[in-house]
């Protein structure tokens, strides 16, 4: 077994027992990257030199007998390129920020480094996190490492592909309407969106601030739990971050039964267009939970399923149109030459790709005078209704099982209509509207070796329960194997 095939917690064990040097670990992963990257294109900025330098520094500290950072000592991590990391550009997959070097680190970067992690690079993404295929990146598309003809999902497609291909055991993404869970599902790895407020977003480039949340990708639930443990703090620099961390998430995986838990299956999904193989995964997952002692019941989420999409595509673009107003060429980022300031704004903002442009325009429309009540206010009311509906459901059950995506990964270039692309998020975005935690789990492969998925959703701050349920499912479905799509190409 190569070093790049190990889970992060195992690597940290090797390093802290001095069985391996951090440099060995990092070189092994960098080797894997250089083998796959020409075909995969998962990274916008690889950071070999900085990673090796950091590895040697950690090794020197270990040699000198200094106290080791934990619990991710020597563990390679890749960041979605919308998280600020000093020493490399933070591009957001956009020409607007192609040359932008952030003057500070995101809080998650600080927490990871304090825990001993080594950042290997910045991952590709749909421009400003708007998309479900990573085809909207100004740096070109990323391939799915399970099958290079397919998309990796999005918007955190580079992070998901990196973990699936063995670039790193852990990567971070951000999830506004499904941007962690959907690419995790498409690449056949685990991906978790925690409760809104669990992880600080200081240094995460804003898309839709009432929905955005950072979370981990991994091929092993232990790594997901460990990463949550490292990242969950009340951060004074993010006013929405919460002190509500509940215990050590790693301990949640010790669960040996689901006795006493009630798990809900959502009725309305049965009428939606879902690939039958994904529907079967949910049924399979329900049986696993039942065998582990849980009681399975049916719940209704009519508003979330029928109206979530419309509600989301009013609220998210409205927030985006406001958040992206700052890209005007004045203070940082790209500036186009122009005669007057207004011309400079327009010429600079020409650099936005077409999906970003669409969302800014839609957001401008729903917020504009005369339409605000009809659209934005109505969507806010629907959002409250959806929150209430989830609250009611969680009076009856501890967690919900549903598919992450309605389809299996599709071919690059196959989905050209924006509306069709938006349907990818139908099962993930209601969770963001309500600020809930959810995890997308690897659930085995189809006959064509395409990854299956199942999503577990819980009430706010129920990460411990979710991880407990997930651990039972991981035993049944197995841990995600490394994707070897590049090895034979």
């Amino acid at each position: 077994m190569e070093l790049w095939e190990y889970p992060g917690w195992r690597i940290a064990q090797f390093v802290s027992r001095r069985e391996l040097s951090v440099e060995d670990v990092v070189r092994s992963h960098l080797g894997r990257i250089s083998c796959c990257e020409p075909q995969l294109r998962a990274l916008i900025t690889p950071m070999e030199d900085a990673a090796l330098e950091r590895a040697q520094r950690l090794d020197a500290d270990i040699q000198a007998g200094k106290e080791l950072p934990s619990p991710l000592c020597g563990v390679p991590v890749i960041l979605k390129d919308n998280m600020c990391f000093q020493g490399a550009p933070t591009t957001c997959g956009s020409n607007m920020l192609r040359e932008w070097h952030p003057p500070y680190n995101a809080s998650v970067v600080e927490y990871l480094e304090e825990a001993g992690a080594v950042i290997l690079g910045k991952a590709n993404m749909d421009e400003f996190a708007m998309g479900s295929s990573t085809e909207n990146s100004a740096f070109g598309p990323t391939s799915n490492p399970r099958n290079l003809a397919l998309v990796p999902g999005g918007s955190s497609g580079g992070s998901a592909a990196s973990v699936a291909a063995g670039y790193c055991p852990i990567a971070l993404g951000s999830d506004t309407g499904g941007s962690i869970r959907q690419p995790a599902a498409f690449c056949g790895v685990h991906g978790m969106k925690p409760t809104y407020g669990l992880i600080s977003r200081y240094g995460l480039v804003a898309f839709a601030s009432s929905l955005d949340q950072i979370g981990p990708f991994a091929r092993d639930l232990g790594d997901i739990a460990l990463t949550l443990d490292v990242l969950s703090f009340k951060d004074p620099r993010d006013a929405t971050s919460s002190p509500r961390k509940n215990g050590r998430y790693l301990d949640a995986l010790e669960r040996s039964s689901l006795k006493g838990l009630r798990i809900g299956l959502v009725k309305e999904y049965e009428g939606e267009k879902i690939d039958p193989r994904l529907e079967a995964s949910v049924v399979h997952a329900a049986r696993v939970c039942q065998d582990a002692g849980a009681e399975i019941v049916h719940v209704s989420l009519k508003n979330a399923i029928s109206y979530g999409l419309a509600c989301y595509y009013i609220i998210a673009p409205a927030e985006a149109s406001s958040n992206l107003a700052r890209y005007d060429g004045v203070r940082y980022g790209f500036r186009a030459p122009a005669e007057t300031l207004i011309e400079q704004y327009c010429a600079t903002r020409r650099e936005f790709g077409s999906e970003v442009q669409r969302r800014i325009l839609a957001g401008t429309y729903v917020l504009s005078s005369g339409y605000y009540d009809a659209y934005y206010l109505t969507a806010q009311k629907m959002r409250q209704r959806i929150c209430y509906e989830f609250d009611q459901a969680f009076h009856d059950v501890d967690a919900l099982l549903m598919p992450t995506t309605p389809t299996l990964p599709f071919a690059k270039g196959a989905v050209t209509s924006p509306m069709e692309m938006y349907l990818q998020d139908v099962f993930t975005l209601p969770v963001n509207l309500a600020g809930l935690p959810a995890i997308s789990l690897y659930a085995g492969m189809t006959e064509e070796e395409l990854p299956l998925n199942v999503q577990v959703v819980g009430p706010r701050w129920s990460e411990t329960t979710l991880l407990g349920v997930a651990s039972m499912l991981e035993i049944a479905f197995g841990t995600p194997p490394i994707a070897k799509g590049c090895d034979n190409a």
Partner: protein
Amino acid sequence: MAEITQKDVEHMARLARLEVSPEETEDLVQYFGDILSSFHKLGEVDLSDVDPFGMENAEARPLREDILSRDDRREAILEQVPLREGDYIRVPRIMEEA
């Protein structure tokens, strides 16, 4: 609710300080038609009794004391400015010539 025309798209673009080409405008008219008809689905539900901001979780919006804090990254932040003169940001002409 009315259909979106090319003129409406151009108006939105002006408000958002975006430049759109005639071809893009055509695509955007189609896009607005599609997305607005999906929004109209929300009209199926009676939401008259819902307070749009009523149930928002107060713990997600905590208040803090209004106390100044120091930030030592002034120079690093100013270094990001595309065109700088000393501590000022240089921009093109703001007023139109008479």
